[in-house]
């Protein structure tokens, strides 16, 4: 009979840790009737997008945060937004513009703070029972900025989610799986209930 050697278990454990650290984790917390989602370990400003930013280009990311209830196909709440990052060459700080109807913008951030500013999401959970099974998911996709013409000229609609000139609409982007070669990240918080969050001290 073959026995599993202890160092194999160690390798498996470390591999699992590496995967977990690599993909980051989704953190949920409950405040009154609001569910806050954050992903402090998800770092998408790296590699080629970061190189483009350091070359004074603007880099758009499409971000979708979804809360499912009952089963994993029923969307209870969902936000979609496009965040355009740029890196100030002289101040060496990041700026982000959220292309929503609110037209939010922030600057003088570190790379981590800039990422979190886009990722942090709050959902109103009025109407959900504490025992309702829930799932949360964050999807981030790198978009190719169009090479000809301005990134956003005349393209912001009232809803802030339909950018047709040069960039594909967010609804369209997330309605299909990532294209081959498209850089993307996905984080999921598996089945939980509001009662679970309160029990583990992540709710009030």
């Amino acid at each position, binding site marked *: 009979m073959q026995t599993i050697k202890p160092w194999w278990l160690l390798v498996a454990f470390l591999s699992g840790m590496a995967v977990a650290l690599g993909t980051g984790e989704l953190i949920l917390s409950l405040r009154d009737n609001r569910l806050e989602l954050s992903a402090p370990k998800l770092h998408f400003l790296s590699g080629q997008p970061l190189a483009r930013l350091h070359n004074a280009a*603007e880099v758009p990311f499409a971000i979708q945060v979804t809360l499912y209830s009952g089963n994993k196909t029923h969307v209870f709440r969902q936000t979609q937004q496009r965040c355009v990052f740029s890196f100030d060459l002289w101040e060496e700080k990041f700026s982000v513009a959220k*292309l929503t109807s609110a037209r939010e913008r922030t*600057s003088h951030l570190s790379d981590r703070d800039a990422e979190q500013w886009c990722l942090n999401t709050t959902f109103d959970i009025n109407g959900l029972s504490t025992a309702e099974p829930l799932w949360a998911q964050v999807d981030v996709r790198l978009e190719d900025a169009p090479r000809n*013409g301005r990134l956003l000229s005349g393209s912001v609609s009232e809803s802030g989610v339909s950018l047709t000139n040069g960039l594909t609409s967010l609804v369209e982007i997330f309605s299909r799986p990532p294209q081959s070669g498209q850089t993307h990240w996905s984080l999921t918080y598996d089945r939980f209930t509001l009662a679970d969050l309160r029990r583990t001290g992540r709710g009030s």
Partner: protein
Amino acid sequence: MEHGVHPKGITMLKLLWMAVAVTLLGMPLLADAGEEFLPEFTNVNSRFVVESVNVDGPKSHSISAALRSEIDQVVGSNLDHSRLDKLADRMKKELHVSDVKVSVAKGTLPDEVTVNFEVTKDKEHGFDLSVPKFLYDSKQGWSGEGSATTRIHGNAFTFGLVSDGDALAERFAGIKAIYERKEVGTKRLGLRFEFDGFHEQWNRATLLDADPYDIYRTRQVFTPEARLVLFQPLELDFGVRFARYRLSTPGAITESSNAVVTTLRYHQRWGSDSQGSNSKQDTDDWRQEAEGSYSLDSATHVFNSDPAYTRQTVEAHYKVRHGHNRVSLAFLAGRISGIAPLFDRFVLGNASTLRGWNKFDLDPLGGSKVVHGTLEYGYHWFEAFYDTGAIWDRTQDREQKQSLGTGVKTKDGFELAVAFPVRNGHAAPVFIAGMNF
């Protein structure tokens, strides 16, 4: 009693109307301003001013004057990355290179940036096959040239086979071997060595007119040449051409024609070369190209040349393209002083000059003086042309000839045309098909 409006009432009314008008007119303006807000602020670097622009890499000196001017206009304006990307795309198309990278860095002064376009070096193709000439003329038959080139560390070695009954008074068939290095120590200097070995075939008309000592059976030519870029767009080719030819006369004497060869060449383009692009902006572009050269070949006894002569040639070519319309003008003038061998004499009435005429009808031995002009108009694949020219030895023999033709020509250079000589009496058309670069 007069009914009237109190002056104050008029003023109030006017003010009210003005307020309404300003509100109505101003609302869309304010709304527009809101929409404009976003694009300008998505890139925090758009507030920086471009301090300088630099273009690096091979072929960077070949950018057209129009594109160079647009690149220069970036200096002093606010950084707009999409504008830089667009310029890089145009450079790629114009220079036919695989990539042009844009780099932006901090400038020497605060809030200023520098821009660098880096034209990437094209990957050397290990082996190329090409067909520089492949054509059929219903009077002169087939002509073709094929070559294979291999490049190793900037050195190009070409071997070619040729059978040409079009360019000269004779049909020559044989081999070509070329070694070329485009940059020798500096981008301004290139070297080229060419060896040709040909067997000749003669038309009956030429044999009847020629002195037996003018006719040769074989010909070998060795041409070492250098190319010097004086300043863009002016280049100078200079070298020596050693030609040996074995006469057809009994005893098979071999003669030499050794000449100093020099060509001063000018080539300039304006506008963007955006072939293959279908955008409206590209089809609205004017693209012009001018090419001119003056050649002086001097065969002298100093180089042990049997014939001593001087051959001067002036050529000019101007092309303009707007949308799908293209017009081309070409001019050729040449003069030979002294007695040149037949392969160095001028010929008219082939696939590129006086199309429709038979060169053996015009002058079966070629001429020592020539003038020729061509006007071509093309739209999409369609083309129409008018050729005129004269070839002569003695002034009293000079006679202007003309021809007209029409046909189709693809972007790749394939041409199918029918040409008519303009003359009294029966005009038999000539059909021309093929590629002739």
